[in-house]
């Protein structure tokens, strides 16, 4: 019996050691991103004696990053090009130019707009597939289903030509439109919306609800948790897109991945500035993750259930 309890203790110790080691290895790169962003480059890039505690150079690194002319990482107040001159008072205005977006704002804007529009499209299509009968429903659904197995972010060559043709190169629409009708999103919405009882829709119809009201007053509210999970999938998909934005966007419209690529590929690589950029792009999503952990997890699991 004593032998057994001792073994149990050793086992528990080993399990804890393994988990804690994993947690440390996970946290070190994250800690290092943050620490390096607060130090001067010479203080952390040293094989003999790197500093491992945060310093106070974050703001000066940040200022240096903002001063770069090849990459606009964080936005700045736009130049006021229009004026109303009233003698003693003059008002500068240019509503489209109040804030020049940098890479961070671009990424948040693009991922946000993409998520909202795609949720709308996918849920509408899912609703149609789940709750309506129409001709060619099955063939259309299976055609969409079949594209689930394709790596859709690799179809960049025709997309590039298409965007050049319709004049959308260097436009945010070029990286929003192609993935709006997300096959996984349509599929997930269709699966979940099948659980809405027909009788519920039917009785609402009898109360005089229009078909569109059925969608946004009954279907959408009952799908809240699925929509939350799907929005995480969609947001992260767009947030991490690199290849196509790299191809299609020019300076001034860069998203975070393209901007960081520009910093890394520059003639002289400034690691302190890059780490400021990495901190600014990683920390906000970490905070989001901590608050919305349940939704992240169900998003991951929803994406993994494709049967």
């Amino acid at each position, binding site marked *: 019996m004593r032998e057994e309890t001792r073994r149990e203790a050793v086992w528990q110790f080993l*399990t804890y050691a*393994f*988990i804690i080691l*994993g947690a440390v290895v*996970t*946290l070190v*790169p994250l800690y*290092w991103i943050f620490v390096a962003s607060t130090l001067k480059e010479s203080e*952390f*890039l040293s*094989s*003999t004696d790197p500093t491992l505690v945060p310093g106070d150079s974050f703001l000066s690194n940040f200022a240096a990053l903002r001063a770069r002319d090849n990459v606009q990482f964080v936005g700045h107040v736009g130049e006021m090009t229009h004026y109303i001159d009233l003698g003693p008072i003059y008002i500068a205005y240019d509503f489209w130019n109040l804030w020049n977006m940098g890479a961070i704002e671009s990424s948040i804007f693009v991922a946000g707009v993409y998520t909202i529009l795609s949720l709308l*499209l996918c849920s*509408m*299509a899912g609703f*149609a597939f789940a709750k*309506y*009968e129409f001709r060619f429903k099955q063939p*259309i659904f299976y*055609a969409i289903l079949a*594209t*689930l197995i*394709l790596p*859709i972010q*690799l*179809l*960049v*060559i*025709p*997309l*590039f030509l298409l965007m050049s043709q319709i004049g959308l190169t260097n436009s945010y629409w070029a990286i929003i*439109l*192609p993935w709006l*009708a997300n096959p996984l999103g*349509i599929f997930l919405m269709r699966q979940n919306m099948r659980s809405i009882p027909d*009788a519920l829709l*039917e009785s609402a*119809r*009898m109360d005089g609800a229009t078909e569109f009201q059925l969608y946004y007053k009954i279907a959408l509210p009952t799908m809240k948790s699925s929509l939350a999970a799907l929005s995480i999938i969609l947001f*992260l998909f767009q*947030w*991490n897109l*690199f*290849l196509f934005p790299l*191809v299609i966007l020019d300076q001034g419209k860069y998203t*975070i991945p393209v901007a*960081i*690529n520009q910093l*890394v590929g520059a003639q002289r690589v400034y690691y302190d500035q*890059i780490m400021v*950029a*990495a901190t600014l*792009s*990683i920390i906000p*999503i970490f905070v989001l*993750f*901590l608050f919305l952990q349940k939704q992240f997890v169900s998003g*991951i*699991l929803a994406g993994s259930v494709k*049967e």
Partner: protein
Amino acid sequence: MATRDSLSGSDPSVRDRLRFARQSVGERLPTPGEGIVGYVFLLPAFLLFGIFLAFPIVYTFYLSFFRFEGVGDETLLWIDTGFFSYRLTSIADLSFVGLSNYTRMFSDTLFHQAMFNTTFILVVQVPLMVALALLFAVALDASFVKLRGVFRTVLALPVSANLVAYSTVFLLMMQDAGLINYVLTSVGLPAIPWLTSSFWSRMTIVGAVTWRWTGYNMIILLAGLQNVPKQLYEAAEIDGANRIEKFWYVTIPQLRPVLLFVFVTSTIGTFKLFSEPVIINGGGAPLDSTITIVQYIYQTAFIDFRLGYASALTYVLIAIVSVFSAIQLNIGGESDA
């Protein structure tokens, strides 16, 4: 309302009762106009799907039999009404080359190198990551572990890291004078040329990808573990099985479908590897030893502008990925039955 009634041809109460009656025997009476409503809801998604997904799928295949000569300029359609004019041009200027884009791959050494690199990373990284994810999942599932939620959160944190942003810290840590070599040399080990030797630069990619995705797979495996019936463990205990035997004879077989799913999605993920080698190895350095397939496609298409050949390469990649996806879908189907 009038039209609805005239369509059904009887008074509403009779119609409603008829509808409920039919529904109660499991038959759905179509609402007037329902056939069109479905299309209306589907239309926006369907249009975008057609233009930006179905068309590229077909057109990539078409392009793979041509040499790209330049952006199209041939007029296909010209509408000119005086105040409004619209000119639709062909999408690209192409010349037919038959199968030569495909046959060229056999003698393209850089393509072979990219295939080799991707396969190397795949063979080392996927088993390593799945094993780690499984061990973390099983460890966190153990009943005696305190602070389980905290550990799970910490291990899953990398899931939220931007793919390009996180790559930069590996670029930094793996420098000759970086943090990892500092740790190695301070415990008396030799420094490792993480970014300058062809073997170690691939291992750097392996390390980075493992760091980013282990937590993701752990979450999927943890969910799988919840579905393993507890009675199986109890039965095994009665039969005198120890921990390791329970792991081998209960956990692994019960998790088989989830494990295979994780294996297949990770394999697909490795074939799509792009951000990490671009950022960490600056486009395949040293000496193309880390260039991946997607990276090679990118270079061929958008630096050399050989769009036809790049399309053929894309289709080879799509074929590989589709085979793995089909395996994965099959597994999902089997586990359901």
